[in-house]
C-alpha cells in the first residue's frame, strides 16, 4: 500500500478541562471512504476542525497528503475540500459566482475556472440553476452546491461533516450517489461524519467514536460480525421470567429494555439476545420457554447493534433531539433574516 492520505497519531484536543478528542490514532488510504460515526458531542467535528487546520490540537500530530496540519497549514488547506454541517455559501451571489469566488481563493488558474464550474455543476445536477441566487435554493440544493464547490480546486481529500443532516430521504440517497461517483471521477479520499447508522454502511471503513475515543475501527461488515450471528427480539408476558429461563436453560445473556412502539410490537419491554444462528435456535426456544411469548423477530445485526454493544447505549436516542435542534437553528436563522 502506498503512503496513507491521512495519518493521525494520538491527536488530542481539550477545551479547558473538557477533553473533546483524546489520543485518537488512525490512518486513511488513498480513495478510501472513511466514516466517523458517533453521537453528537463525541468529538467528530472537533477532529475534522483539527484536520482542516481550523483548530490547533493540544497534543499529538497529524499529516494530510504528506503535510503537517500545524506547520504546513496552507498546503493542507490547498489539499482539502470541506462541506461543513451548516451552509457556508454566500446566498446573495449566484451558484456560479460562489464557485468562481472559491476558485479564486484556491488559486485555480483563471483559464480553467469556468470549465471546472460547469463540470462540477453538471455533476450535482445544478446546471439549470447556475445563475440563480443561492438564497432561492432548497436545503438539498445548497448541500449539493457545497459539495460541488469543495471539488473546484481538485482536492485530494473531501471532508463531509454530517452531509445529509436535515435532508429528506430522497435527497440523502442522491447525496450518497454523488459521493460514490466523485470518488471514481476525482480519485479522491472522502472523510465523513454521521450519526445515521444506516448511512455509515456506505463507507469502506468506519471508526466508532464515543466520548473522544475511538472504540472500534473496521469495515461495516466486520463490525457487524463482532455482534455475533443474529439478533432476536422477544416480547413475553413476563420479561424478567423469560430472561431467567434463557439463562438457565440455554445459557444465553439476554438484555431487557424499554422500547417505543416499532415493527415488533407496541411500546413496552423487549428482550434482546445475540445468537450465532437465529433460524435454528428459534424453534427450540419457542418449544421450551414456559413463559408465554407474544412476538418474535429475527434479524441480521446492524451498526446500531454494534454501537449498543460497544457503548451500552443506543445512538438513535439522540437523533430525534438533534433534528429538533437543527430545526430550531433554522427557524432562528430565518427570523433574523426577515
Amino acid at each position, binding site marked *: 500500500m502506498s503512503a496513507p492520505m491521512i495519518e493521525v497519531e494520538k491527536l488530542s484536543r481539550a477545551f479547558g478541562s473538557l477533553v473533546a478528542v483524546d489520543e485518537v490514532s488512525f490512518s486513511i488510504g488513498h480513495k478510501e471512504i472513511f466514516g466517523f460515526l458517533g453521537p453528537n458531542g463525541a468529538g467528530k467535528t472537533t477532529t475534522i476542525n483539527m484536520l482542516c487546520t481550523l483548530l490547533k490540537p493540544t497534543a499529538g500530530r497529524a499529516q494530510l497528503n504528506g503535510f503537517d496540519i500545524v506547520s504546513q497549514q496552507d498546503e493542507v488547506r490547498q489539499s482539502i475540500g470541506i462541506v*461543513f454541517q451548516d451552509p*457556508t455559501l*454566500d446566498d446573495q451571489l449566484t451558484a456560479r459566482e460562489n464557485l468562481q469566488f472559491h476558485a479564486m481563493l*484556491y488559486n485555480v488558474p483563471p483559464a480553467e475556472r469556468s470549465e471546472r464550474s460547469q463540470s462540477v455543476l453538471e455533476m450535482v445536477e445544478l446546471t439549470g440553476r447556475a445563475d440563480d441566487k443561492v438564497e432561492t435554493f432548497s436545503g438539498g440544493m445548497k448541500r449539493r452546491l457545497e459539495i460541488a464547490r469543495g471539488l473546484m480546486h481538485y482536492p485530494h481529500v473531501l471532508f463531509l461533516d454530517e452531509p445529509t443532516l436535515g435532508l429528506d430521504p430522497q435527497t440523502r440517497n442522491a447525496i450518497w450517489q454523488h459521493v460514490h461517483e466523485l470518488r471514481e471521477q476525482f480519485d479522491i479520499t472522502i472523510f465523513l461524519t454521521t450519526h445515521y447508522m444506516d448511512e455509515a454502511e456506505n463507507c469502506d471503513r468506519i471508526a466508532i467514536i464515543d466520548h473522544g475515543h475511538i472504540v472500534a475501527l473496521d469495515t461495516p461488515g466486520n463490525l457487524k460480525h463482532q455482534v455475533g450471528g443474529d439478533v432476536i427480539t422477544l416480547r413475553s408476558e413476563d420479561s424478567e421470567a423469560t430472561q431467567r429461563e434463557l439463562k438457565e436453560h440455554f445459557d444465553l445473556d439476554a438484555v431487557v429494555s424499554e422500547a417505543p412502539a416499532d415493527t415488533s410490537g407496541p411500546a413496552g419491554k423487549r428482550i434482546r439476545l445475540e445468537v450465532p444462528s437465529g433460524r435454528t435456535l428459534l424453534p427450540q426456544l419457542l418449544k421450551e420457554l414456559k413463559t408465554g411469548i407474544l412476538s418474535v423477530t429475527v434479524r441480521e445485526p446492524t451498526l446500531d447493534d454494534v454501537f449498543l454493544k460497544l457503548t451500552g447505549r443506543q445512538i438513535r436516542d439522540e437523533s430525534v433531539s438533534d433534528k429538533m435542534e437543527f430545526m430550531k437553528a433554522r427557524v432562528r436563522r430565518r427570523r433574523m433574516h426577515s
Partner: protein
Amino acid sequence: MSAPAPSGGSLGMRRFRAVYIIWLRDLKRHFRDRARIIGSLGSPIVFIFILGQGLGSSLRFPASSGAAAIDYKVFMFPGILGMTVLFAGVFSAVSIVWDREFGFLKEMLVAPVPSWSIALGKVVSGATIASFQGGLMLLLAPLVGIHLSVGMLLLLIPTMFLVAFSMTGLGILVATRLKSMQGFQVVMNFVMMPMFFISGAMFQLQNAPQWMDTLSKVDPLTYGVDALRAIMISDVPSRYPLSTDIGLIALFSAVMIFISVTAFSRQS
C-alpha cells in the same frame, strides 16, 4: 504523492490577491443591492432637507459675530457627508458579523489565505463602499447651494476615502467584539451616534461646554468633518488647519487598521 498545484504567482502575491478577492465580492454584493444603496441615502436627505431646513429657519449660522451668515443647510452638509461615510463604513465592516452568522466567513477562513488578508480585504471594501456612498451625497451638493469645483473634488475625494478607511477600521474592531447582529444596536447608540453628534457635524463647538470640547478632540470624525467643511465652505472658519486634520485622520486610520486586522487574525 503530489503537491498542491502552486498556481497564481508567488505566495506574497497570492496573499494580496486575497484582499482583492474579498473586496470584489463585497462590491458585487453592494452594487447588486440597489435598495440598500438608495435606502442609505434616506437619512442624510431627511437630515439636510427637513432638520436642516427647519433649524435653519430659526437659527443664525455661524453664531460668531463678524462672520457672514450662511444657510444652515450649507453648514451641515459636510457634517452629513461625514455621517454618511461613518455609517456606511462601520456598517460595511460589521458585515463580517453577518458572514460569521451565515457561515460564509468559514469558507474564507478555511481557504489557503492568511486571516489578516481577509480583514484587510474587508477594510478596503468597506472604505470603497463608504466613499461611494459619500460620492452619491456629493451629487446633492448643488441642491443646497454648494457648487463644487474640480479642485475641490480632487481634495474631497481622497479626504473622504481617508475618513472612510478610519471608520471601516473602527468597524472591523467592533465586529471582532460582536457575537451577533443584535449587539449592533448598542454600537449604533453608544458609539456611532455620539461620534457623529460630538464631531461638530451639526453645530459649531466654539461655544460648547468644556467636556464636549474635550470629547470632540478624541473623536476622529471631528477632524474628518472639519477637513470636509474647510474644503467645501470658505465662509466658515475651520477649527484646525487642513494639514492637521488630514494628518490626524491618516494617523488614526493607520492605527485603527493595524489594531483591527491584528485583533481579527488573533481571534480566528
